[in-house]
Every structure is written in structure tokens, then in C-alpha cells.
């Protein structure tokens, strides 16, 4: 027979304003096993926890129920409290009377009734709880960073700085990501490459960091502290160890039809190429779609000219498998496709470009060597019109419902840089709202207007059309209630950003949750913003939500701190709420093994005494270090042999019964 204490939290007015907490505490006083019940203003506070500890000792409690917020919030807190008072932490149950009750109801009477039922449900469960003890699993002291942009680079450098080994897996031929494509950064206007490339070099030179470029994650097994990851090293047809980055092959390559991805396909590149001058690793890669040798078997010119003998047309994809304790996802973003926005004429007019394309045109290493020339005829544009929110804040289905967050600032940056460099250029910006929260951000935007005379027009563009070689931009000027028509030479679209599409595959491999916009979900928006709900997986950069470089770097360092905190531990406590099979009931049908997402179930042949006879039986066996306690096997098992510790069928049914008593 249990001796149960019930503790109802007011959560200030969060619960107490909607739920009569005293009535709840009173109502359950005489329930089975309950020997003590109390309420307190903030149960999670020092004093609240002391109240629980004292009650456990004074009333010799064997189990407690806390009626409070979601267990995701404070279950760990109250488990620690119980343990400090000598009670097994798995004898604690949380009744969620905040998120599941007070926050969603208005009627005090009904909410109180519901709170009583929820608390009774938890009491019913505690009556059947048994103390559980956590096992231990070792931690592999190596981290994996997926994505080699600024987020991945920063996370890797910080983790390596603490002395742990890190692998960066980057799907492209070089690390650097989107930041490498950017010309200048807001709000300081410092050169992006000048601050990024030293960090890239640091990565390459750091003994603890292994850069696996041109590689992709193919398979992930295991769990926090103990991941086993299969990585595909795509054939680049160039020996990474031999290539010196001399670029002679690039000069001699006769196939020059490939589109330069780094320059947003604004110019051509050879079939064998190094993405950009400061690439890390500074090693060539062959594009098999463009290479004449790989397609027809004739040519081989690059192999002939390569002094290092690095070219190898026979190279095949290779697979390596490594163990990691923690994984940082930093897969980044891309601008959205603009096919659905024909009103802006992006696909018909060469001189309607995206902001990232403008970034390359303005860059000294870009297709025009940094001279602002329009793509169609190489002329200097005299009138430039920017359109913001192209596909952002769009609930019509064509774009994205969210604000892409970076566009207001980079548009102000572009407008300002153009007016600075080419003062005779007229610059217009169509905006819906200008959003500039951030240190020195609004000051930056105001400089574009006040100092550089950029013409900001409140309103959206309805259509862009070509008339005698001029781009006619027709839009609203809502302040003056006018329709305006601007004859422009160049139109720049601030296209919405979306997570890099490969993140979906990564999320599936990691069983990390992802939202409807393909952003990875953090564990808690405020309290665990860099952790995925999947233990041991951390999120950095735009894969978690739109953000600029300062925020990305902060988040990456935060991830590194979390990873370091994990890797310094020699052992991790495992979750004792794992599945186990009742040997006499198991019929060895294998259904549980086929649904287990973690591969925790194997089968053993075992001699059992059944009805006085010895039989050799095939029985399910769960590896408690691998099992994550999801319960998929327990509901699949046709004979009811599988059960979950701490969440047994009996416990769940007792809860259901309690709810149905009403």
C-alpha cells in the first residue's frame, strides 16, 4: 500500500485563477493511498520544493503527485526534489493542470472538475508505480557537425577548442556555406569573406577537426552518447590528399558549360573546378554531368596536365562509419524558387534578379568582378527597384507564412552600398513593413534613408513587365494612396528563405522533429532553444528558424557548450523506462522487432519450463541501453508479452479507468 502525497501548484495565477486549487487538494484527500495533500503558490520554487521534501520525510511518503505545469517543464525538477528527500525519482507523477487545463479553459467550475480528474489519474498511476533505477551507458567523446556553413564551422571550432574531436560533414565540395557567397555583412558592412575564411582555415588546421567535404550522412543508429553514423563520401574524381589546388586543370578543361553554383549560376565554370578561391579544402572536384571523359571516355586532359597525379576517373562513392556522442545539425538554407511569382517576371527577365544574385554581382570575386552591371547587356543600371517580402509572410500557398527576418536588413545594405558606390543611381524599395530589431539595426536602416537618400515606398508591387527594354514596376504607394509606375533598369527580389531541402532526410535519420515549414523543432522555445527533442541532437543556424549571422554564431556557440557538457561526461544515465518481454507469454513472432525504430530488439533461443515440460523457445530480448521507451512494441505485441517499465499496460489502464469514472 502506497503512502501518497499530493501537491497542487497555483503557478501564481496561471493555475489558481482558473482552477480552485484548494478544492482540488481537498477532493483527493481521501483517495486511495493519499495521506497528505497541500497547495503552494510556486511549487517549483525553493520553498515549494522544501515543502515537498518535508512532507516526504514527515509522512513517510512512498510516492508523490504534483499537480502543476507540463512534465516537459518541471518533471525533472520534482524528480530531483524527491530524490533529495530519499524517495525514488520514478515514484513521482505530474498531473498537468496548467497546459492541459487552466490555460485552455475559461470556466472555473469545469476547469476545477477537470483538474481533480487529472490529479486522480496521476494518483491511480502512482499506486501502481515501482521504484526504478537508471542504468549507465558510455559516451563516445567525438561530435558530428552536419553542415559546414558558418553555424557548423563555429560549433566545430568551439567543440575542438574544448579538446574534443569533431567531424564536419559538408555535402558541397567546400565548407563556407551561404556566408561565403555574401559580399558585405550588416550592420557593420565588413567584408564577409574577410571574417569567414580565417575561420575556415582554422577548421582545416585544427588537429581535432576532420572536414569531410563532398559527403552526406546516410544512416544514423544508436542514441545519445552512442551514435553510429554511416557517411557517404561522394566520388569527386580527384584525390584530396594529392591535389595542390593549382587550378591548372581548370584552365585546360575543354568543357566549360557547367553553371557556376557559387556565383548563383550567373556565369559558366569548367567541368573540373574549385568552387571559389578560398575553398576549404582547396581541392578540385569533377562535375560528372559535364565531364567529357566521364561521359564519353575521351579527353582526359586534366589528368595529363595534373602535376600531382591527383585525377582519378575511376573513383567510386565510399562509405565510412564512425561513432559520435553528440550531433549538431547546421544544414542551413536556400532562397525559395520563384516560379510561382510570375507577377515579378523573374524567369522572363534577366534583369529581375534575387538578392543573393546581386550579392555575387557586387562581390569582387563575382561574375562581374564587383562592378554593378546588369546581366542582360552588361550596362550600368541607373534605376534600381527592390521588392521586399517576395514569398515571405505569404499564406496564399505560393510562398512561406513566416517572415524571413534577414531581408529588410540586407535590402537596406544593398541600397546603401549602391548609393555609396554609384551616387547617380536612383534606388527605390517597396516594403510592407521594415523590421529592424537588433543592436544598431534600425540606425543602419535609417542611414539608408536619411544619409543615402534611398526612396522607401510603403506598398507592394503588383506587376513587373518589360516595355522597350525597360522594366516597368507597377505598385502601390499606400501613404499617398497612389498607384506608381517606376521605369527601372534592374529589379531585385528579396526572396524568402527556406531550410535546405536535404534537412528532411537528416531529420528522418535522426528522428528529430520538424515543422510544416521544414524547420527543425527545438525542445523548448525559451528554455532549451538549441536542443532537439531527440536527446543528443543540437540545432544551429537557419535549420531551426530564420536568423542572421550574429544570431547563427551565437546559437552555434550555445550548441557547442551543450555538446561539450555532454562529452565531458564519461557515462550517461539511461532511461529505466524501457520495454521488456514476459518470457512465458512471448511467442517469438518478431512483430515487435519490425516496429522498433531503434533496433533494440533481438531474439534469443531459451529453454523454458512450460506446463512441467522443458521447451526451447524463441523469445524477444530488449537491449535496455538502446531502447528509448517509445512503446511501439508494447502496442504491437499480439500476445501482450511486451510491457514498458514505468508505463505498464496495467498503469495506463488504471489511468484510463480513473478518467472514465466521471
Amino acid at each position, binding site marked *: 500500500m502506497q503512502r501518497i502525497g499530493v501537491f497542487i501548484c497555483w503557478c501564481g495565477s496561471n493555475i489558481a485563477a482558473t482552477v480552485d486549487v484548494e478544492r482540488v487538494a481537498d477532493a483527493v484527500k481521501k483517495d486511495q493511498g493519499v495521506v497528505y495533500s497541500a497547495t503552494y503558490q510556486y511549487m517549483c520554487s525553493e520553498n515549494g520544493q522544501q515543502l515537498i521534501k518535508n512532507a516526504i520525510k514527515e509522512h513517510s511518503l512512498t510516492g508523490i503527485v504534483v499537480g502543476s505545469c507540463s512534465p516537459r517543464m518541471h518533471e525533472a525538477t520534482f524528480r530531483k526534489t524527491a530524490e533529495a528527500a530519499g524517495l525514488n525519482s520514478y515514484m513521482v507523477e505530474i498531473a498537468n493542470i496548467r497546459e492541459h487545463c487552466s490555460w485552455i479553459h475559461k470556466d472555473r467550475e469545469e476547469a476545477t472538475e477537470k483538474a481533480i480528474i487529472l490529479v486522480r489519474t496521476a494518483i491511480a498511476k502512482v499506486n501502481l508505480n515501482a521504484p526504478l533505477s537508471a542504468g549507465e551507458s558510455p559516451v563516445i567523446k567525438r561530435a558530428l557537425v552536419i553542415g559546414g556553413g558558418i553555424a557548423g564551422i563555429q560549433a566545430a571550432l568551439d567543440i575542438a577548442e574544448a579538446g574534443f574531436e569533431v567531424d564536419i560533414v559538408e555535402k558541397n565540395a567546400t565548407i563556407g556555406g551561404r556566408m561565403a557567397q555574401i559580399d558585405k555583412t550588416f550592420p557593420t558592412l565588413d567584408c564577409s569573406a574577410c571574417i569567414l575564411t580565417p575561420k575556415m582555415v582554422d577548421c582545416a588546421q585544427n588537429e581535432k577537426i576532420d572536414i569531410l567535404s563532398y559527403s552526406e550522412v546516410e544512416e544514423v543508429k544508436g542514441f545519445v552518447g552512442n551514435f553510429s553514423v554511416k557517411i557517404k563520401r561522394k566520388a569527386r574524381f580527384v584525390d584530396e590528399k594529392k591535389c595542390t589546388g593549382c587550378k591548372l586543370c581548370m584552365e585546360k578543361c575543354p568543357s566549360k558549360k557547367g553553371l557556376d553554383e557559387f556565383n548563383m549560376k550567373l556565369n559558366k565554370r569548367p567541368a573540373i573546378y574549385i568552387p571559389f578561391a578560398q575553398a576549404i579544402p582547396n581541392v578540385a572536384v569533377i562535375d560528372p554531368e559535364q565531364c567529357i571523359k566521364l561521359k564519353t571516355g575521351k579527353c582526359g586532359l586534366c589528368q595529363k596536365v595534373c602535376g600531382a597525379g591527383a585525377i582519378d576517373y575511376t573513383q567510386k562513392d565510399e562509405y565510412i562509419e564512425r561513432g559520435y556522442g553528440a550531433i549538431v545539425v547546421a544544414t542551413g538554407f536556400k532562397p525559395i524558387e520563384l516560379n510561382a511569382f510570375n*507577377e515579378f517576371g523573374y524567369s522572363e527577365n534577366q534583369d529581375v534578379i534575387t538578392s543573393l544574385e546581386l550579392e555575387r554581382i557586387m562581390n569582387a570575386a563575382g561574375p562581374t568582378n564587383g562592378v554593378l552591371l546588369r546581366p542582360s547587356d552588361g550596362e550600368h543600371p541607373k534605376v534600381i527597384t527592390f521588392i521586399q517580402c517576395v514569398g515571405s509572410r505569404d*499564406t496564399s500557398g505560393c*510562398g512561406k507564412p513566416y517572415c524571413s527576418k534577414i531581408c529588410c536588413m540586407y535590402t537596406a545594405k544593398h541600397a546603401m552600398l549602391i548609393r555609396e558606390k554609384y551616387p547617380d543611381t536612383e534606388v527605390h524599395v517597396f516594403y510592407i513593413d521594415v523590421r529592424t530589431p537588433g543592436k544598431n539595426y534600425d540606425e543602419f536602416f535609417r542611414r539608408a534613408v536619411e544619409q543615402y537618400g534611398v526612396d522607401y515606398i510603403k*506598398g*507592394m508591387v503588383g506587376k513587373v513587365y518589360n516595355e522597350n527594354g525597360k522594366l516597368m514596376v*507597377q*505598385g*502601390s504607394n499606400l501613404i499617398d494612396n497612389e498607384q506608381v509606375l517606376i521605369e527601372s533598369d534592374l529589379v531585385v527580389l528579396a526572396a524568402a528563405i527556406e531550410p535546405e531541402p536535404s534537412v528532411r532526410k537528416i531529420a528522418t535519420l535522426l528522428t528529430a522533429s520538424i515543422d510544416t515549414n521544414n524547420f527543425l523543432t527545438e525542445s523548448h522555445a525559451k528554455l532549451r532553444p538549441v536542443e532537439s527533442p531527440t536527446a543528443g541532437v543540437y540545432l544551429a543556424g537557419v535549420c531551426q528558424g530564420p536568423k542572421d549571422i550574429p544570431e547563427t554564431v551565437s546559437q552555434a556557440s550555445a550548441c557547442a557548450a551543450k555538446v561539450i557538457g555532454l562529452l565531458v561526461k564519461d557515462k550517461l544515465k539511461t532511461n529505466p523506462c524501457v520495454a521488456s518481454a514476459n518470457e512465458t507469454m512471448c511467442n517469438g513472432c518478431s512483430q515487435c522487432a519490425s516496429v522498433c525504430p531503434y533496433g533494440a530488439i533481438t531474439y534469443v533461443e531459451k529453454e523454458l519450463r512450460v506446463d512441467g515440460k522443458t521447451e526451447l523457445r524463441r523469445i524477444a530480448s530488449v537491449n535496455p541501453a538502446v531502447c528509448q521507451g517509445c512503446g511501439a512494441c508494447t502496442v504491437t505485441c499480439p500476445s501482450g508479452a511486451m510491457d514498458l517499465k514505468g508505463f505498464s499496460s496495467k498503469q495506463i489502464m488504471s489511468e484510463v479507468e480513473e478518467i472514465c469514472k466521471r
Partner: protein
Amino acid sequence: MTVKEQCENVKRMSGTDVRKCMKCGKCSGRCPAFHEMDIKPHQFVSLLAQGRIEELLKSEAIWSCLSCMACVERCPRAVAPAAVIEAVRDTVIRAQGANGMKAEDIPPMVDELIPQQLLMSAYRKYNK
């Protein structure tokens, strides 16, 4: 009918949630009849949201709107200014007690590519 009831009625008829509008003006930025309209497409949405239905009922723009649906097509928030204009137009015509359209007139003229609202509004305008 009170002003509030009239507003609710127009909102219901239009099937549009005017609160979704984020005042970007893309509707008016695209409108080919903009210069002919005394009240602009974006103002129809805004005035209705403010409950200023009387101004809309008096507007000349309900007869100059082409019902071309460009505003509906372009709206990033799935608001339909043309549907609001159509609802106002309909309210005015109903108050006059005449519809001007016979049921049997419709079938031979229906083309599946033409938005049905365009047909309806055209009948109403030309029969007013």
C-alpha cells in the same frame, strides 16, 4: 438593417476574412482599373474592416471594378478584395429590389475557364 449587420452580411457574402490583410497594397498595385476607382481595392478591405460600409455602398468603384480577379490572384494573404467589391455591389442591387438576371440565362454562357464570380458581377453591372 443596422450598419453592423450590413457589415457582417457583406463579410459573409464575400467569404473573406478582412482581418488577414497585412496592408501591403499588392491588390492595388496590380489593379488595372485603379485610376477609374474612387475607392481603391485595398481600401475596400480596410474600410470594411473598420465597419465603414456606408462609404462603400455609395462608391462608384463598384461599377468600375472589372472583376478581373487580379487582386485576388496576387494577394499574399488569401484575402479577396474583388469578392468584397462584389458583395458590396450585390448589396446595393438587392436594396434596389432588382437582380436583372434570369436563371435560364446562365447555362449557355458558362465557360469553365471563366471565374463564376466574373460572370455574376458582369450580369449585375450590365443589368443595373
